């Protein structure tokens, strides 16, 4: 697919409405790449002029900072802010809640001030403004979906409604898990846990969360974070439930539902 980089836009003398911050998972992880492509497809269909940083994008530093490595975080933040300020970036949309949180809450103190929104908020706007139209005969209609709150969207940034509003526009039945919204159970990936084995315990966090998702008997699990997606998929697979319950990002669900 044709996706412009900021460098290309600059060379052509144009500016995008919004920078799509893809994130490391969205760029490199095979599963998350599908989410990235789904969201890019939606942006194209909605006629949004956007660009990516491409090879100039680097890890925000989130996992390093949360592991305790402030030096590495500051190095990455410095580098990214230099790049984005040079391009005079004003608005950023990202499909990763961890990147979202860092860009939105932690870069301002370091000189990176941008209007940052998460893709579920962006999708909500596009639907409300009529930029994208949900097909009346979309394939999700009448299906049951359970939404897994990402900690970095929910508790960290109080975003509980946008993802739910987007899903509601599909005419589906939303079924909440036992623990949801501010009480939602973590998938187990945050705080740099994604990059190491869990400490020893009686069970795994993603298995516990997968059980709660399975309990709802929903047809699909909706996620809004590439890391939650991986953890939930693995958890459900371990319970031999993969045939029944697929884990999909909200962007993927919407991409298949628009006219």
């Amino acid at each position, binding site marked *: 697919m044709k996706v412009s980089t900021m460098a290309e836009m600059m060379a052509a003398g144009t500016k995008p409405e919004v920078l799509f911050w893809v994130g490391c998972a969205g760029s490199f992880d095979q599963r998350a790449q599908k989410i990235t492509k789904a969201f890019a497809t939606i942006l194209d269909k909605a006629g949004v002029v956007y660009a990516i940083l491409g090879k100039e994008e680097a890890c925000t530093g989130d996992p390093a900072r949360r*592991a305790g490595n402030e030096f590495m975080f500051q190095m990455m933040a410095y580098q990214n802010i230099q790049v984005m300020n040079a391009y005079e970036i004003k608005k950023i949309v990202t499909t990763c809640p961890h990147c979202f949180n860092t860009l939105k809450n932690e870069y301002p103190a370091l000189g990176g001030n941008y209007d940052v929104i998460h893709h579920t908020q962006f999708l909500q706007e596009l639907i409300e403004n009529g930029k994208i139209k949900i097909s009346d005969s979309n394939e999700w209609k009448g299906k049951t979906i359970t939404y897994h709150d990402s900690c970095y969207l929910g508790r960290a940034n109080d975003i509980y409604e946008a993802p739910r509003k987007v899903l509601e526009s599909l005419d589906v039945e939303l079924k909440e898990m036992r623990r949801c919204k501010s009480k939602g159970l973590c998938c187990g990936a945050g705080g740099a846990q994604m990059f190491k084995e869990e400490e020893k315990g009686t069970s795994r966090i993603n298995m*516990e969360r997968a059980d709660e998702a399975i309990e709802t008997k929903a047809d699909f699990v909706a996620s809004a974070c590439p890391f939650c997606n991986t953890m939930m998929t693995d958890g459900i697979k371990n319970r031999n439930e993969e045939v029944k319950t697929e884990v999909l990002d909200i962007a993927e669900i919407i991409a298949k539902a628009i006219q």
Partner: protein
Amino acid sequence: MEFISHIFFLILSVVAFYIFGKKILTIKRNIHLGRPVELNDQPIARWKNVFLLALGQKKMFRNIPVALLHLILYVGFIIINIELLEIIVDGIFGTHRFFEPFLGVLYPTLINSFEVLALLVFVACLFFLSRRNIIRVKRLISNDLTGWPKTDANLILAIEIVLMGLFLTMNAADPAANFIISSWMKPLFSNFNEHQLHTIEQTAWWMHILGIYAFMNYLPYSKHLHIVLAFPNAYYASLEPKGKMHNMVAIQNEVLYAMQPELAPTNVAAPEKFGAKDVMDLSWKNLMDAYSCTECGRCSAACPANSTGKLLSPRKIMMDTRDRLEIVGKNIDTNGQFVDDGKSLLNDHITIEELRACTTCNACVEECPVSISPMDIIIELRRSLIMEDSNAPTEWNGMFSNIENNFAPWKFAPDDRDAWTKQS
């Protein structure tokens, strides 16, 4: 004789308040051993938190039945203590029900409402005792509480029950009094003559006030101190989004000067300690958090690591911090200043395994009814581990070097970052 008892009461009161005040000042000093942090901005938002979170107990209402019972205890505690005013005046001046003539019909109304509350508190305490000892609610019987903390919790409830019992007995044995709840107890005393009744009333009166003074002085050593500190702790609670981590300006500048040496000042200050190894390296708010914790365990019940059997328990993080701070405080009391005892919060109280299990999901912070952030302490200790001790699991070291060399936590070629655009 009468005269002596008034003097005795006066001395007792002065001593009780003196010892209490002294301990409170020690706690205040201990809290100020923490790093300075400015938390005085946005006073309106902060007062709103005091009203909603502390006074209104908003977080407690995530579980309504328990919240209502807790509200009874809390309202009862505060309102019944208004009666304390009269008790102290009576004790000092040898009066009997000093306010009665001044308040007229309002007096029995007030005492009646105190009595109703006293009964409700009595019942609520029994219920809470049963939750700890008979129903055995999971978070109230966890290993965190083994030993003293469990006794502390039961003791507080038992003392409350005894105090309420004495308050009602005192009124019931007063022949001149006829109040709503204590009048039910009057038949219990029907076989006593006036002199005996007077002795019972006086004994109950003395035990009640002694109990209250003892309870007051027990508070600073108990988890129950939250009844005081919940208020300042709500005022100084973070107003930032929970996802935002505290920025380390020293490191920010170090990176900046490395990248742009022309900005570096010539007189560079000695680098500070990175993160927290001991309680003095934490902020004073972290330390006030530790004294505010009433060990209810809502944090640990919600913690994904704890509920999957990992060693980490956010409640234990808070208890350890307070324990260590008390040790440091006693060290200062003995030596005049802190003398290194070869121990620290990290390692001697909180282990690496506990710290590593945190997913920074903020569930503990969200749950805490008194605005404590155990996560903040966990992160500061993690910072010390990585930046002072270079202590990281192998996988994290791999992640760090991937970020440094490939600009992503995984080992992918940076040139492939936009490869997805070329896939079908």
